[in-house]
Each structure stands twice: as C-alpha cells, then as structure tokens.
C-alpha cells in the first residue's frame, strides 16, 4: 500500500511548492493540488524577478537529498518522489481531526490522459474553437485543447471545457485514444491525511469594464502580467516588444499604480504590497531591453519597503524612468492612436501625456476570503486572508505554515522516506531504448541503420518502443531494464527529461537524448539518422566513463545553536525544540525578548511574553546569558562553536546555527524633551496621554538616504498608530506628518485611511529637501515646501516626533561565520527571493532584524522559517549526501586551493591538521566549478568525469 499523505497542499504556486518541498525534504509524502491544469502559479508567467531581473526559481529545489527530486528548471514543473501532483483539483470539504483528515476533492476532468498523450499536436490542429490565451494576458490565441504552460513538462494537452463545444474532432484525430470528453467533474475522497496547507494565493483585480482605464476601447492598455508576457520570449510576440494594437515597438510606457488597490470606492482599503516593485522591475526591464528611457510610473506613493527596494528604485530612476505623483483622471486615445493619460499632478495641475502603451498595475481582487474549512483544526493558511506577497515573504510564510504541518506529521508518526543508498558498482552494462513516437521517428529516421551501426561499432543493443511515454511503453521499458540486467541506459525520445525523473535511481545511470531535436522539415532522413547516430555515440562515450554516484553518510550533532534571544531567535528555538531538536540559545544580554521593550501592541507583547515563558521552561532549550560566539569551525551537521561567557569559554557542538542577533532602533540623540522618536512615543502612549497640541511627525529621519539608504518598513505603521492614538485621546490635537512615501503596505493601509479620516494632515517632502526645524522657546517651527499649495510653508509644533528607522546589530558575526553582508550591514541571504533565510553556507541560517527590517510578527515567522530550514539537517541522526558531489584525489592534489576559492558554497576547506583540501559532501551541490579550475583533475565530480565528457565530445564529432 502506498504511504499515507502527511499533508495536502492546496495551490501549486511558489508558496505551495515551498511548503510541499519543506515536508518532502523531511521525507513526508505530500499531495499537492491545484485547481488549474498546471503547477507554477503566477510565476510560470513571469520570467524575471527583482532584484537581479532574472529568475533563480530553481534555487528553491532541495539541496540536501537532491536525488529525490528533479534536477532541472523548476518552471518546467515540480518533480519530487515524495510529492504527488494532482492538477484540476479543489478542496470541497475537510472532515475529521488532525492526523486523520478526510478530504473531498472536486476533480475537474482534463480531457486528455497524460499517460497516453504524446504531444503530437494533431488534436490542436483540428480543434475548431479558438479563444484568447489567458497565459499570455489574453494577447494571443489558443484552441480549446491546448498546452496550459508552454514550457511545462510533460507537455501534455488539456481541454478547456468552458470553451469546448464537445464536437469530438480531437477525439477521433488522436492517434493514441488519449482524449475523453465525456467525463464530468468528479468527487474524490482521500482519507488519513495529517493536515492541510492552504496556499491558494489570491486573484488579480480585473480592470475590464472600469471606465477610467478604458481597456475595452484601447487595446494598448494592458495589465502588468500581460506586459510581462509581452516582454517574454515565450510570450505572445515571441519576445518582440511590440504593442497589441498595431505591432509598433514599445519604447515609452506609462505604469498606473494602485489599480484595484487603495480604492475605498470599490472596497479596496488595502495596499497589494507587490505592485510598486513589480512596476519598477518591468520599467527596468523595458529600459534594458529596448534601450529606451522615457517611461513613467504614475503613483500616489512608491512603496519600496523591501530591504533593497530603495536602492533598486534609484537604479531604475537612473535608467530614466520618471515617477509621477498623481491621480489619474482618464485614459483616452490621442489623435495618432496612442493611449494618453490625463492626470492631476502633485501640485493639482491637470496634465496629459501620450505613451506607446499603458500598463495597469493591478493588485489583488477585493472581497476574497478563505473557504470556511480554514477554521478546521489541522488546516493552515499561508496568509490570514487571500493576499499578495513579495516572493521572499511568501516563502517565509509557507515555511511557517509547513512547520505546523510537520508537527502534526511527527505527532501522528507519518512514514518518511529519503533517497536510497544503494550503489551499483558493477561494470557498465549499457542498453539503448529509442521511442519511435508513433510514426514520427519511423518516418523521419532510419531506425534499422541506427540499430545495426551501434551494434556493429559498439556492440550495444537497441530496443525500440512504440510509445515510451505511454503506460504500456513505460512498463515495457522497465521490463527491458530488468530482463537485460542493465545498469546504464540511454533513452532517446521526444521529451526525455520526464524519464530522468522517473528513473532517478542511484543504481541506474541514464543519458538522455532528445530525438525531436534532430528532425527537421528541411533535412533528409539520412541526415537525421547521421545526426542521431553521432549523439548516441557521444552518449555512449560519456556513460561508459561515468562512475556510479557514491552516497556517503555522516552522523550529525543533533542540536541547534541559536544566536540571539530576541523574537526571531525565540521562535526559532521553540520550533526546533518542538520538533525534538535540543537548542542552545546564546544571548548577549541578561534577558530574553530582544526588542520587546519597544513594542506597544498589547497582543504582540502578550504573545512574546508567552513565547519567553515557554522557551524559559523548555527543558530541551539551554540558555546562555551574557555570552557571545567567539569562534566557529566545522561542517554542516557538525559545527563546533566556542561561546565566551563572562570570561570563560565553552564549546558547543551543533548541527546547525541560526543567526538571530537582531538589530534595533537606529541611533538618535536629542536632549530636548519635546523631541521624541516614533518608537519612544508609542511606548509612552501606552501609559499616558500626550498633552501636546501641535504635533509634527517627521518620517524617514536619516533613513532612505545615504548611508542608511533603506526603508525600515515599520516606522510608517507605528507613526500612523501613534497619530490615531493621539487623535483618540485628544481629537483636537493637530497632527501633521511629513513623509516621503507612506509605506502602509497590506492592511496597514487601513490605518492610513483611518488617520486621514481623523484629520491627520499629510505633507510630502522630497528626498533632497528634508523639512527644516527651527527650535525656539515655545517649541518648533518647521519649514517645508507644500506641493499642493506650491509654496513654502511654516508649521508650528510643540512636539516633534522623528521616525528614525532600525539598524542591524553590530556583532562581527559576518567575519566569525564568514557571511556576506549588504552595504548597510545586514547579513545577506543567498537568494533574496527564493532562499530568504539561507546564508549560502549550508547549515547556517539568518532571520529577523539582522537580515532585514521587519515587524515583530514578520521576525517571528522568519525565525520559524529558519528553524524549518535547519530541520532538513537536524531531523535525522544521519545525513546522507546526494550523489554527484566533488571529491579530491589527495595523491595528486597540489593544494593550490583554487578550488576552495572557486566553490560557491564554501563546501571546501583546508584542514588545519594535514593542510589537505576536503569537501563537505552535504554542502557540495556538484556544480563542478572546482573541477574546472583544477588543472590536473585532482578534484572530480562524480557523474561528470572529464574523461567521459572528452570522449563524448570526440564521439560527437567523429
């Protein structure tokens, strides 16, 4: 019987994939569903991500126990032995209790049996129904039977039953009888599931039909997603950046922000959080791709509240992109047919400007709620409401949810399975399997000649299978492997990557040939045959020289070291301890809680106090006060750290380290008691009334300017809280807030609305012109420029409140642990988007304020997420390396250490004892950078031996 699913993850976007992988990496079996016909969510449509304007999604894939999952581009699909993906599924009901949930799934028919479909396209060619292709933002067309994501594998067609007329043309045309249009929506119930993670994300606001944006009349007004498709080489125009109406090259684009967000009229009293960065990224990409520089972003605020967002914005500005503070009046077509935007600018003037294209930065759709079963025990949502989140925040939230699912999986003892350790060391026994792919290859290639030649020259057998991708074909393939006792296999098929996943077993080495690449309309059968023959020869050369990937194991120190007893550190420690991992907390001060004294929210204070209570009384957690990390060595799974505590030193052995040393208020000094910081005021307001009558709040004090050129993320929210509280206490108090951009992301927007409703006055200033403060006997006079009045103004105040931002802890850990930092001194994660809490040194994770500005709940989630990553190492007694790692042949190694410098994972180290270079099998990812800098092959990558590659090059050209 199949293992039970420990968890059902609903939604196969990046959040769902992260959560599913978290569980799968620990060995639990996961059922991943999506209501769509394919996985990937919105990211399958996006080729580029801030901040490097490229992808990097594959970095989400497992790094430990790699053999269990596919080792190729994640946008092609999610393949992991512990994950079963069911497309076209939605949860109907959830019954039962955690550890034994019974879940009914509504399964929509896909119309095509993926086991039978060969991707031959004949169905598409006969389908009479043509509809707009939503994948490409409705800018291209597709048939009712279609490929949902062009780059997905396997590239199996599905039927869109909403537009299908059930004419049956495709059914009779299909050569493999893969199509069935008679099936109805079915209900399937799966029992014994431990928990559910709801990662269904949200929906985009649909601007169609809104007069203001005029999308029905003007073709050149598109959504941001559609624009992303326009810029994609797999998009509607194949990467040619042209506009929909007339195909003219796009040079000048207007981005309209807050479409469907921050709009009380439609009940959207929220900020969608991601659209500003999204628009900036698209503007940057356009400028880069077309060498144009006249685009403009029309916005109210530009919310660049992520750590590196401010500097990114400035880089975009340098590319010539304009940021126009404005309210949009209308979008019309001008005389030459270009879309033209009429708007009211910051000083109230009516203006208009024409563009090649108008892009609507659509936010999340309003009034969305989670299904009611979210209330059930054992069901965990990734977010409180269906919400948009920046990718790194999504990843952190996913791991927060998956950590709860793991607790249940552990509690109810769900079976785990990791990759096998079996090694086949026998002499190479090669066999070749070619798929004739229906008639395609029979007609275009001389299969007889190939079989004869290979047998004559190399003495290797070839079997031809009619349809290797079909169910029958697959079982035939497996029986051939068994029958012939094959341990090395060459597969030639139209889409062979799928086989590498199915056959990813240590004992069978496979090489894969894409036969379709050799067939073209312009070349003869002879040429295709010759070309395939040479590719087979090349593969033989390589496969013969491959050594089976050896798997090594290592005992680990099952303990985690958490540096810092603040909010993120505490939540990390708690999560680890709950999973049965002993923890040592190293805290510099003499108490736990970190920034607790600066938190004014009663519920948050309560929950942190609760956390401190739990951690303090946890017998599994040792706490060292007044202590610091002084030195560190070892490899992941076996770190040795020296902790100095009040003039003594003690050594702690741990498998993993979590850096949570935090940060705090940026330093600010003012003797005047009528001058306060936003943080201090918020604490004061908990106790007493503020008697001031004229209060001026000044945002971004020494913040978002060099040298502290980042947004501290929490000050605007706190300042708004303060303003509302003062107004509650004394409605007559006059409050003026000077700001650059109110960073009221997500639901903080509601506070912004509330503050305005209560009469708080907001006045914007420019970065270059911080309002001038003159203090006098009665208080202060603030001189600033008013954009609306378009003149200099003076405001009197008897209380001045500065938002001074946060700064990372200065603790030298980047040196002790050899970690990278940002220019601002925050410790840098290895990939901002996809691995936000990984430092790049396996086994060492980063969370909380030491990584980036965050509020208490964000820091808590980061802490859990970091613990979750550490658990991949710590949840078992033994760590097993994935095959395909580098190793050093010491007898010929000259110890030049070029490999040590080249390794991107610091997986190599020089032993103090014998000066030799060693590889840490767990950290090594088998990239081979070390091998290429080694002049004499003293370092080799299993599975990619130079000999094999050289032989294959020789054979390919022979």
């Amino acid at each position, binding site marked *: 019987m199949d293992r039970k699913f420990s968890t059902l993850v609903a939604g196969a976007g990046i959040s769902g994939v992260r959560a599913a992988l978290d569980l799968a990496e620990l060995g639990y079996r996961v059922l991943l569903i999506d209501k769509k016909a394919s996985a990937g969510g919105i990211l399958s449509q996006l*080729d580029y991500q801030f901040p490097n304007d490229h992808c990097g999604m*594959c970095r989400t894939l497992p790094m430990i126990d790699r053999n269990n999952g596919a080792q*190729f581009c994640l946008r092609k699909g999610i393949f992991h032995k512990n994950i079963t993906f069911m497309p076209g599924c939605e949860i109907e009901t959830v019954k039962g209790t955690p550890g034994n949930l019974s879940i009914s799934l509504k399964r929509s028919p896909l119309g095509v049996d993926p086991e039978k479909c060969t991707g031959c396209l004949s169905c598409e060619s006969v389908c009479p129904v043509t509809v707009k292709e939503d994948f490409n933002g409705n800018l291209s067309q597709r048939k009712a039977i279609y490929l949902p994501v062009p780059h997905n594998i396997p590239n199996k067609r599905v039927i869109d039953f909403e537009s299908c007329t059930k004419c049956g043309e495709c059914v009779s045309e299909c050569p493999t009888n893969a199509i069935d249009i008679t099936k109805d929506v079915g209900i399937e119930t799966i029992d014994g599931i431990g928990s559910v993670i709801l990662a269904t994300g949200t929906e985009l606001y649909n601007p169609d039909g809104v007069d203001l944006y005029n999308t029905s009349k003007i073709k050149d007004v598109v959504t941001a997603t559609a624009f992303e498709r326009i810029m994609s080489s797999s998009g509607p125009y194949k990467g040619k950046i042209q506009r929909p109406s007339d195909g003219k090259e796009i040079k000048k684009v207007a981005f309209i922000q807050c479409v469907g967000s921050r709009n009380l009229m439609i009940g959207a009293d929220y900020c969608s959080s991601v659209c500003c960065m999204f628009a900036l990224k698209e503007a940057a990409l356009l400028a880069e791709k077309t060498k144009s520089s006249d685009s403009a972003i029309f916005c109210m605020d530009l919310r660049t509240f992520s750590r590196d967002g401010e500097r990114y914005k400035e880089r975009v500005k340098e590319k010539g992109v304009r940021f126009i503070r404005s309210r949009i009046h209308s979008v019309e077509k001008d005389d030459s047919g270009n879309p033209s935007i009429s708007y009211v600018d910051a000083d109230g003037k009516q203006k208009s400007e024409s563009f090649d294209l108008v892009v609507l930065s659509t936010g999340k759709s309003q009034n969305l709620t989670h299904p009611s079963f979210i209330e059930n025990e054992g069901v965990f949502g990734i977010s409180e409401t269906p919400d948009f989140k920046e990718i790194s925040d999504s990843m952190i939230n996913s791991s927060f949810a998956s950590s709860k699912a793991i607790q249940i999986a552990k509690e109810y003892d769900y079976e785990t399975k990791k990759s096998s350790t079996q090694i086949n060391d026998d002499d190479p026994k090669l066999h070749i399997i070619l798929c004739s792919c229906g008639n395609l290859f029979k007609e275009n290639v001389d299969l007889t000649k190939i079989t004869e030649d290979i047998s004559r020259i190399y003495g290797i057998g070839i079997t031809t299978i009619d349809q290797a991708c079909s169910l029958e074909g697959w079982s035939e393939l497996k029986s051939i492997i068994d029958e012939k006792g094959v341990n090395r296999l060459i597969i030639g098929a139209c889409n062979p990557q799928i086989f590498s996943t199915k056959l990813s077993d240590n004992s069978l080495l496979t090489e894969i040939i894409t036969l379709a690449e050799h067939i073209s309309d312009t070349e003869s059968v002879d040429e295709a045959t010759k070309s395939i023959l040479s590719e087979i020869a090349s593969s033989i050369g390589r496969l013969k020289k491959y050594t089976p990937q050896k798997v090594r194991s290592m005992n680990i120190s099952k303990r985690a070291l958490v540096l810092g007893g603040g909010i993120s550190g505490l939540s990390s420690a708690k999560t680890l301890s709950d999973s049965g991992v002993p923890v040592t907390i190293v805290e510099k001060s003499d108490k736990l809680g970190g920034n607790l004294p600066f938190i004014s929210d009663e519920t948050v204070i309560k929950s942190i106090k609760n956390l401190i209570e739990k951690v303090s009384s946890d017998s599994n957690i040792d706490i060292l006060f007044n202590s610091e990390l002084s030195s560190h060595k070892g490899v992941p799974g076996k770190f040795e750290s020296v902790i100095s505590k009040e003039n003594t030193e003690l050594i702690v052995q741990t498998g993993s380290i979590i850096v949570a040393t935090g940060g705090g208020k940026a330093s600010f000094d003012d003797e005047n008691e009528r001058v306060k910081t936003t943080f201090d005021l918020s604490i004061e307001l908990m106790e007493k009334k503020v008697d001031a009558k004229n209060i001026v709040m000044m945002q971004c004090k020494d913040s978002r300017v060099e040298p502290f050129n980042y947004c501290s993320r929490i000050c605007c929210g706190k300042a708004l809280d303060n303003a509302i509280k003062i107004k509650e206490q004394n409605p007559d108090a006059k409050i003026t807030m000077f700001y650059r951009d109110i960073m009221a992301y997500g639901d903080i927007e509601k506070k912004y609305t509330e503050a305005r409703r209560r009469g708080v006055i907001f006045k914007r200033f420019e970065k270059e012109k911080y309002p001038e403060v003159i203090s006098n006997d009665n208080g202060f006079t603030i001189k600033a420029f008013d954009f609306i009045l378009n003149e200099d103004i003076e405001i009197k105040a008897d209380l001045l409140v500065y938002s001074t931002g946060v700064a990372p802890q200065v603790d030298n850990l980047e040196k002790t642990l050899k970690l990278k930092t940002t220019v601002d001194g925050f410790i840098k994660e290895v990939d901002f988007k996809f691995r936000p809490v990984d430092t790049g040194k396996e086994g060492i994770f980063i969370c909380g304020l030491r990584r980036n500005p965050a509020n208490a709940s964000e820091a808590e989630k980061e802490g859990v997420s970091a613990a979750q990553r550490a658990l991949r190492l710590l949840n078992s007694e033994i760590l097993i390396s994935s095959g395909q790692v580098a190793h050093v042949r010491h007898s010929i190694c000259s110890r030049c250490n070029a490999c040590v410098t080249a390794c991107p994972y610091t997986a190599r180290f020089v032993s103090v004892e014998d000066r030799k270079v060693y590889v840490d099998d767990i950290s090594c990812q088998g990239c081979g950078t070390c091998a290429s800098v080694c002049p004499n092959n003293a370092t080799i990558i299993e599975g*990619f031996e130079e000999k094999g590659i*050289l032989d294959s090059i020789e054979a*390919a050209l022979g």
Partner: protein
Amino acid sequence: MSEHKPKIVALVCNWCTYTAADLAGTSRRDYPSEIRLVRLMCTGMIDSKYILKAFLEGADGVFIGGCHPGDCHYIDGNLKAVKRIEAIGIMLEQFGFEKERLKLEWIGASEGPEFQENMQEFAKKIGDMGKVQTADRMIL
C-alpha cells in the same frame, strides 16, 4: 554562401540553456541539426580542455550557453567561467582559430526562441567562415 555544413559543439548548462534548448526541441522548432549538445550542470564546470578538444576534433564552432548573470543555479558559476573562456579564446586565436568560432551566450530557461535564433545565427556565421582548419581531421 558555401555548401559547407558546420559542426558545432554546444556546451550548455543544465538549468537554463539546456532547458531553453529542450523547449526549442519540444516545440519542434527547427535549428540546424549539426549542433551537438553537451549538457553540463553549469558553465562553471567547463574545463578549457573541452573547448580545445572540440576544436582539435574538427568542430567548426563551440557554443557555450549558460544562465544570465544573477540567474545561475549555483550562484555565480556562469560568471566564474567568463574569464577562463576569454583566455582560451585568446590562445586559440594565436593558433589560427578565429575568435568568432568560440561564442559565449546567456540564454535563460524560458528563452527557447532565443536559443534557436542564437543557434541559427551562429551556424550561419560559422558556415560563412568556411571550414575550420581542423575540419574532418582528428588532431590528437
């Protein structure tokens, strides 16, 4: 244009360019069939010997395809390869291999059409250049 059909060895990284090539292949795009793909995990894995070997074995051109900077699955393997590939080009040029015969290009996973275009363009350029000096010979 010459009748000569150039032989091209394409050393491509597993994550991006191979994916793009695969996309081009599975979408049944047509790129010149005299291209021999050699899949490696990363362009950072490319040893200078692979390039030498290909040219000495009579490759008319060697194409190296990796992830865009910042995109590398292994953080920066692609960037680490750049200088090494540049150096081998400088050296080969002195032995009479025109530098155009060695090309490094970043092609992302979703850029199937780019892969095809690059291949066509490169094949055409190499084809126009005529046979490589080592063509149909095996220099050992």
